[in-house]
């Protein structure tokens, strides 16, 4: 059987990540994702769920994060949505990748990695939710 879609609904709690990662590994094996695509998939979801949990709910309210993956012919389509405070990752400053070890700033790489590894990337604020949509190549 071909799994062509998979959906997750998570609380804004990092403890949700471990079972999610296991499920992504199973999905990757079931649809035989190339190793780089499988790694990019986990990375994209890991980075954005971490960001949402860490920065989206400064008042510690309960929140909901949804992740959906569609297996298309030539790419994976991923939608990550959270009801945290508005955050447009496209406005995040690009890290300076050129400095020496002493000059390189620690942190700030997550959004950069995902934007660079995705073939398309979009953000919208919709009904009080941050919605990130991205595509990953299947021929990586």
């Amino acid at each position: 059987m071909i799994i062509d879609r998979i959906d997750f609904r998570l609380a804004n709690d990092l403890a949700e990540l471990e079972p999610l990662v296991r499920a992504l590994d199973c999905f990757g094996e079931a649809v035989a994702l190339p190793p780089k695509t499988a790694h990019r998939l986990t990375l994209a979801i890991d980075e954005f769920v971490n960001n949402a949990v860490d920065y989206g709910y400064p008042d510690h309210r309960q929140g909901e994060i949804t992740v959906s993956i569609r297996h298309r012919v030539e790419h994976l389509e991923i939608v990550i949505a959270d009801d945290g405070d508005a955050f447009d990752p496209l406005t995040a400053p690009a890290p300076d990748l050129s400095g020496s070890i002493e000059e390189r700033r620690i942190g700030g790489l997550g959004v950069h990695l995902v934007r660079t590894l995705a073939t398309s990337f979009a953000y919208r604020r919709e009904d009080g939710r941050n919605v990130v949509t991205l595509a990953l190549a299947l021929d990586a």
Partner: protein
Amino acid sequence: MQIDRFVEKNVVITTVKGRLDSSTSPKLDAFMAAIPDGSSVLLLDFAELTYISSAGLRVVLKAAKLAKGSGVVLAICGLIPPVHEVFDVSGFSTLIPIHPNRDAALATLA
């Protein structure tokens, strides 16, 4: 994640097995916080590292900064292609010496 450390000549080798992400990276961070006395080279053997996120990169950069400040070389070996890709995209490949495997690293560093 499993971390092991052993010494070969002047090289302190740290092997990391499993995933380096926001939940596991503090363990490596604590492990790399002190440089063993008398070592001149720190080698991170990532041959069995299956996954790295920005949280893992953060710990690697921190360790590289600490080594540099202490006059110690930090190098990496054994990256699988999906992990190597993350090092490339982050610009770390030009910052930290990366060797294909442990033997190649030791041939250069030991």
